[in-house]
């Protein structure tokens, strides 16, 4: 393509301006990616929620416990495929700063309700037989350099102050890369043996899997009706509704960060686009000369567009590369505070798309002007 030399030669005439403009695009893209990643992290709970799962909690309060006997009663309701229960263990591993979620799980039914957590059968079988066994998510194990076979001490805070020890029998993965791999599971039977009597034979909350997501409303209603007027009335809703309560409470922080960031992103793009447009306008007389020599009007437009798109794409790709390099660092800085900050292909493509859009727009308007300008006028302009 004979234009390529011309395009590159033009771009590199003013090296510093080129660097600054490409840099501005890059910065805008880093920001965009960061915001997309943060938004996704705030909403991860909702994103990961199973469409075919319901959560049952004590109506009186989130922290209240329900009798373990409810499990069978819930299972008996038509439309319920499997039921399991969890407790929030809430202990401390070495230091409060090392926060991670610990769940007391019901070994028999957990896998039926949460098929997305994959544990090699060998490890799972060991775990089932080991009352003091534990399973950790892959990211969690990586964080503390745990290996299968390690002994993990965790100090309880909710159930007395003793330190419980667990054998790490297995590590789970999720199919999707953005799945939650930061959980720690221990056995309900061991838990039940060692807690004060007030807490024995209870469940913190129930999670059930539906035969079909369409049954959600009916089954939820049926469960709550079943336990109405009992000492522990229930509140049942879909997992995503449950998760969104937490997400919504973050609401304002997320809104603030995203609004500010969004405004900044678009301003950066506009400013950069303006710079590109100005540099095109400055070269009107040169473009006039090209036309005088014999380049067609369209080819002049094409030239201008090619330049601005080149800048936008260099900058965009550079920005994405920078984002990919720096975001894991930020994610590490907020481990435990937020779910991991993960980049996904759609995010990257969207950001690049914005950059190219601005690149095209900023070159289009002056480009059309240059295309239409009469040679005589162009040559006269300084």
């Amino acid at each position: 393509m004979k234009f390529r030399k011309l395009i590159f030669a033009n771009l590199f005439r003013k090296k510093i301006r080129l660097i600054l403009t490409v840099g501005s695009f890059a910065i805008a893209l880093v920001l965009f990616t960061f915001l997309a990643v943060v938004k996704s992290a705030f909403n991860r709970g909702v994103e990961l929620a199973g469409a075919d799962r319901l959560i049952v909690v004590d109506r009186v309060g989130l922290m209240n416990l329900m009798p373990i006997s409810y499990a069978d009663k819930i299972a008996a309701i038509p439309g319920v495929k499997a039921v399991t229960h969890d407790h929030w263990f809430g202990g401390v591993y070495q230091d409060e700063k090392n926060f991670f979620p610990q769940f007391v799980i019901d070994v028999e039914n957990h896998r039926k309700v949460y098929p997305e957590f994959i544990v090699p059968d060998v490890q799972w079988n060991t775990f089932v037989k080991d009352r003091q066994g534990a399973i950790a998510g892959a990211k969690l194990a990586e964080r503390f350099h745990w290996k299968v076979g390690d002994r993990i001490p965790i100090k309880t805070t909710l159930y007395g102050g003793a330190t419980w020890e667990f054998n790490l029998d297995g590590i789970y993965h999720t199919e999707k890369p953005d799945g939650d791999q930061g959980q720690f599971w221990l056995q309900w039977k061991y838990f039940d043996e060692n807690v004060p009597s007030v807490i024995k034979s209870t469940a913190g909350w129930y999670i059930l899997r539906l035969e079909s997501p369409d049954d959600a409303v009916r089954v939820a209603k049926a469960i709550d009706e079943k336990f109405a007027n009992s000492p522990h009335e229930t509140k049942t809703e879909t997992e995503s509704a449950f998760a969104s309560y937490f997400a919504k409470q973050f609401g304002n922080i997320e809104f603030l960060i995203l609004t500010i960031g969004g405004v900044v992103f678009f301003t950066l793009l506009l400013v950069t686009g303006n710079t590109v447009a100005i540099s095109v306008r400055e070269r009107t007389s040169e473009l006039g000369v090209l036309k005088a020599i014999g380049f067609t009007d369209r080819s002049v437009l094409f030239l201008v567009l090619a330049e601005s798109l080149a800048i936008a794409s260099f900058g965009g790709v550079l920005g994405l590369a920078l984002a990919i390099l720096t975001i894991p660092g930020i994610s590490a800085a907020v481990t435990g505070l937020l779910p991991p900050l993960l980049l996904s292909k759609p995010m990257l493509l969207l950001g690049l798309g914005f950059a190219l859009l601005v690149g095209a727009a900023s070159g289009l308007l002056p480009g059309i002007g240059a295309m239409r300008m009469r040679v005589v006028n162009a040559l006269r302009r300084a």
Partner: protein
Amino acid sequence: MAIPLTYNFRSVKARWTSAIVAVVGIAGTVGVFVAMLSLAKGFRATLVSSGSPDNALIVRGGATSEMTSGVGLDSVKIIQDAPGIARGPNGPLVTAEAVLMAPIPLRSTGTDANVEVRGVSPNVLEIRKGVRIVQGRMFSPGLAEIVVGKNANTTYSGLTLGNTIGLGTMQWKVVGVFDAGGSAFDSEVWGDPHLLTAAYNRPDTFFQSVTAHLTSPEALTPLKDALTTDPRLNVDVTREIDYYAKQSTRMTTLITTLGGFVAFVMAIGAVFGALNTMYSAVADRGREIATMRALGFGGPSVVFSFLIEALLISFVGGLLGCLAVLRLNGVTTSTINFQTFSNLAFAFKITPSLLVEGVFFALVMGVLGGFFPAVRAARLPVATALREL
């Protein structure tokens, strides 16, 4: 020996459209910087002001927060006779408190927030001296009445004076609104602990914490020694103000880290914008610069002159940025505090020192954006520039 400042002022004015790019970039960055930091400061300030230096907070040994703590009635009886605790006309100034979470809808979204509900002793106002009733009255012990903090009153629905809402298995009447000086308590609901624990099916003889008013701030040490060495007890004793400071660390870290990254990225973008503006200023004014150098203004004068111009632009940007976000001061927002899992309303807190930091930050960006262009201006080949058409 210096190029007159008038030259810089007027030059910036004459090319204001180009300067605007830099000004906006810097203003935006400073605005975000100040906003983010004031958000974090506000969060922390809310929590820290909840505690006072002459109160001690007692929780179960090893508990990371009130939520995860449990102190039995028998322990409370031992604690209230410990040394260092102030006494009032009705006995020791201690409040044994039950802390629960209740789902109450947010006015903004209609979805539930985890609101902290606290069962307090009748003498709580003598211990928490920063709290006063501003509407209605204090609840009467033994009755299903509650008082709500001023932020709780505005952030959650149904907590208006005279209203009745359901908490747990009982119905409660809102009889008063209190002002806790912008602290975490302003987001809470207070009532009789015995009735609250009953409403939530909790054992009546179990509290989450004991807060004691000390005879003096120094009395913490003897109190702490007495309680932690007592074999009948398993408790941690912290100065109330320290406890609340710790409660804010996670959220403050999160806001500061995320906000800091955004501001940092913006700063780079703003410096680029300033560089662009200054470089094109130097390019456009090549002949003027060469003329002045021909007249005898040396390299350093030129560098200084352009730096001043960059500082001028960035100073204006910094001021604008600060002014723009000043309106946020005192604006309340709410979020969930990780460490207590409960909802907390807090306000942006913009302090004068924060504004000064913002303007300083702007000036730093100005120097970064002006230095290299200034050096280039000083190094322009004079002879060629003079003849440039």
